[in-house]
């Protein structure tokens, strides 16, 4: 019976550590005039989705969302990322306070109709999942400066389809704070991401 006590402590420890407050705040905090520190939050943005709907900072207000960067003709990591994103969509497709924002980094090729067809073939009807398009440099800058993930054009990267980008899934909470960056090509990391989304939605 005594043996069970450390075991209980371990259990207690794990149950305690499993809360939204334990997720980190990513990005450099800023100080306001009163000297109070504020956690980094994603700045304003505006895109058009596959149905020509405007998706901007207002749309994500009070919603938890996952952001990623891809392009439809990508032969390398994107299909793996999309396989994993399908798992996330399946889990949260009926939630009203959750969104997925997949940004194309190749808007020249990925027109609205290409994105619409891609979405239809990938997942069919998925009201929470938006495929976003804007100017190329605007999108690349947003990826790097707002979400801290890489997205570059590199015409010499032939095998990668002409673009170099990260396979990251960025988790953003209802106050636009980045709470995690996950490798969207790894099943295990996405399982962790799914658990963390649940924590943030519950909160």
């Amino acid at each position: 019976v005594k043996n069970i006590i450390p075991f209980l402590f371990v259990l207690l420890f794990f149950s305690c550590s499993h809360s939204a407050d334990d997720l980190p705040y990513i990005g450099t905090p800023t100080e306001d005039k009163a000297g109070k520190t504020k956690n980094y939050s994603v700045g304003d943005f505006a895109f058009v989705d596959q149905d020509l709907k405007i998706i901007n900072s207002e749309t994500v207000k009070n919603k938890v969302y996952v952001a990623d960067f891809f392009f439809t003709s990508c032969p390398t990591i994107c299909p793996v990322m999309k396989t994993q994103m399908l798992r996330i969509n399946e889990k949260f497709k009926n939630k009203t306070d959750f969104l997925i924002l997949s940004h194309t980094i190749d808007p020249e090729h990925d027109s609205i109709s290409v994105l619409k067809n891609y979405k239809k073939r990938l997942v069919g009807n998925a009201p929470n999942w938006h495929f976003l398009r804007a100017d190329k440099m605007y999108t690349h800058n947003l990826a790097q400066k707002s979400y801290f993930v890489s997205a570059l054009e590199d015409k010499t990267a032939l095998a990668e389809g002409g673009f170099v980008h990260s396979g990251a899934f960025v988790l953003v909470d209802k106050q636009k704070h980045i709470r995690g960056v996950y490798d969207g090509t790894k099943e295990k990391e996405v399982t962790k991401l799914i658990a963390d989304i649940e924590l943030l939605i519950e909160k």
Partner: protein
Amino acid sequence: LKNKLTFFLLFFSLLGCNSTDELKLEQYKINGQRLYETHCANCHGKNGQGLTELYPPLLNADYLKNRAAAICIIKNGTKGPITVNGKVYTQAMPKNPALYDIDIAQISTFIYSKFMKTDSLITVEKVQAIKCL
């Protein structure tokens, strides 16, 4: 005695030939799997299952029955619609310039043995003999 010896030697050399071919087949399958997982599995899936309606499956895919056409696509990629098991797929497949004919041969050997259950060696010569459009 001499006859017997010749017979045995002939017999063993035949066996030897057979086993080098078998060895080659195994080699192609193993290398082919590694290449498949690096260059093909992202879209077509580790088990050849494809990805929803975006990328066609390879597992029991009727399209693979036309071996020459399939090998040409592995070599040169393809654009435009393609019908696999009655479904139309529209995503383009890029040519992979990093793959040599030996790689194409090994990938093809692996695909046919794993997904079509036909265990036969697809050699470099066979790959090079196919006239693609």
